């Protein structure tokens, strides 16, 4: 029975394209592969050593050749050798791996941010400009891209093998990962944390485009409203602007420029305002009370979807002045409704 032509085709494809490792399509891919190759060398050398010992001893000391065993108690020197050398190698691997880990999980400050929402069984990507994607992610080549990810239901895991990048997407908490794609093309996107029936269907494509192609894509796929604009509408409709007016006498803290600041808290601690902090402060305000304010803010747990939360966070992140907040407030107080035209004005 010959090899079926289909199988043969797959075999040649496997051997010619990605025989032992997937394509290196990000800046960390090469670094991960270097560690991987080092680790295999370690394995092969270790394995060869053990095999050599087994074979040589088996041949040399088999019963026909060596009928009487010579008892040896042990050898402290030898044992110390094979304690210390592996220990040294493992510690070296630890340092190398730790370096790589911190590199992959520490996004550079100048990264562009894309939000990812995972749910059973699809990936939603939300670009700051308001572009939405399902089971796909378009990114420009040569730019640092940070993904801020959250799950709506269970644990998922965002994995792009060609980038050697993966991180769990957690319910109730933002997690981040970043990459810098180096080669244009379409790559696999997998959910790697088992998440229920259609786990293996939670896949998609990561499309890396040249900057100009990317710009063209951005322009053609906009939904008309940026995340921040959506956030602004939510900010008004949820009543946030009633208290967070930016006035010195306001019931809520001034949010303009708050992102990235160190906030003095009611309990005396200091907290850095991050995406995660903003999200938690909206859901559990009393546990995130800045100094000098009363715990009067209601919780929005269960009232805002994760996408809405992202809009709000993105809005507050970009909030530099309270001018528009006060304007909106003035309008809504007179109209009892948020102005529907606000989306058309670019802040």
């Amino acid at each position: 029975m010959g090899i079926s032509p289909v199988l043969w085709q797959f075999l040649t494809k496997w051997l010619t394209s990605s025989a032992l490792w997937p394509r290196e399509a990000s800046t960390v891919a090469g670094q991960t592969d270097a560690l991987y190759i080092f680790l295999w060398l370690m394995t092969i050398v270790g394995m060869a050593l053990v095999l050599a010992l087994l074979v040589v001893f088996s041949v040399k000391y088999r019963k026909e050749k060596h009928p009487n065993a010579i008892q040896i108690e042990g050898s402290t020197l030898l044992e110390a050798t094979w304690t210390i050398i592996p220990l040294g190698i493992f510690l070296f691997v630890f340092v190398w791996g730790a370096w790589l880990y911190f590199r992959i999980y520490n996004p550079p400050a100048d990264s562009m941010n894309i939000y990812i929402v995972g749910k059973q069984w699809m990936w939603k990507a939300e670009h700051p400009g308001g572009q939405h994607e399902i089971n796909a992610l378009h990114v420009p080549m040569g730019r640092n891209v940070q993904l801020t990810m959250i799950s709506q239901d269970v644990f998922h895991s965002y994995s792009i093998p060609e980038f050697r990048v993966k991180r769990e997407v957690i319910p109730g908490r933002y997690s981040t990962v970043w990459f810098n794609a180096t080669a244009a093309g379409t790559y696999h996107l997998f959910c790697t944390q088992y998440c229920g029936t259609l786990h293996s269907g939670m896949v998609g494509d990561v499309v890396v485009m040249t900057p100009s192609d990317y710009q063209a894509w951005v322009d053609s796929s906009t939904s008309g409203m940026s995340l921040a604009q959506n956030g602004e509408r939510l900010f008004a409709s949820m009543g946030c602007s009633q208290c967070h007016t930016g006035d010195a006498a306001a019931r809520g803290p001034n949010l303009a420029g708050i992102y990235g600041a160190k906030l003095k808290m009611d309990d005396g601690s200091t907290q850095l305002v991050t995406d995660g902090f903003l999200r938690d402060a909206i859901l559990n305000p009393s546990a995130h009370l800045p100094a000098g304010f009363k715990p009067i803010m209601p919780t929005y747990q269960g009232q805002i979807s994760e996408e809405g939360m992202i809009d709000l966070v993105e809005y507050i992140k970009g909030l530099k002045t309270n001018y528009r907040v006060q304007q909106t407030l003035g309008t809504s107080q007179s109209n009892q409704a948020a102005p529907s035209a606000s989306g058309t004005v670019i802040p």
Partner: protein
Amino acid sequence: MADHALTHDEVVAPHGVHEHPFYQKHHFETAEQQREAAGFGMWLFLLTEIMFFGGLFMAYLLYRNWYYDAFVSGSNTLSLSLGLINTIVLIGSSLTMAMAVWAAEVRKQGALVMYLVATIVLGCVFLGIKTVEYKEKFELHHVPGASFDISEFVHPTDKAEKPLPVDMANKTQIYFSLYFAMTGVHAFHMIIGLGMLIYFVIKARQGLYTTGYVQPIENFGLYWHFVDIVWIFLFPLLYLINRH
């Protein structure tokens, strides 16, 4: 009677050296070996119990740190007096259990039965009070689940209580989950213990444990004291988080 050490021979081997006491299993060399094995085995079992409760204590520690205000408010709805009475009752039952072990060791059958019965009575009192407390929680809708109600924490009837913001009040459910899980598992251990105590009373009345065969009583004592120790931690952790 003052503490004193009896050598083993005086207790178990009054007739001749080749006789084994009736309770010695034949795979043991000596009764003493059997006794130490059983005691050690019991301790290992308690080790697993430590880790079993340990998982719950770990969860408690985490959420108490996260949701301290909710834990304080939740804790303050528990009845301090009932908790205190129960603590005294349970430590009292530990005392009677310890006395039961002593009675078995000095072979006083009447005293042994009396102390075991006293332990049962105190154990039942504890569970009775616990039932009253649980019943109150059901009536107040403080049992985690669909009917859980936070209004008591948002608008406390007791004016001395600090009202909680809604988001923190929601977290009292975690406090009550842990309260029920911890006291529930504890009460479950007590129910098992009471069942065994009844068996021991029946056997003790037949004189089984006052012939030198102390080991079952002694091992059960270890179990009962362990349950007591768990409560010694549960009482301050659940009832007394911040009462002032």
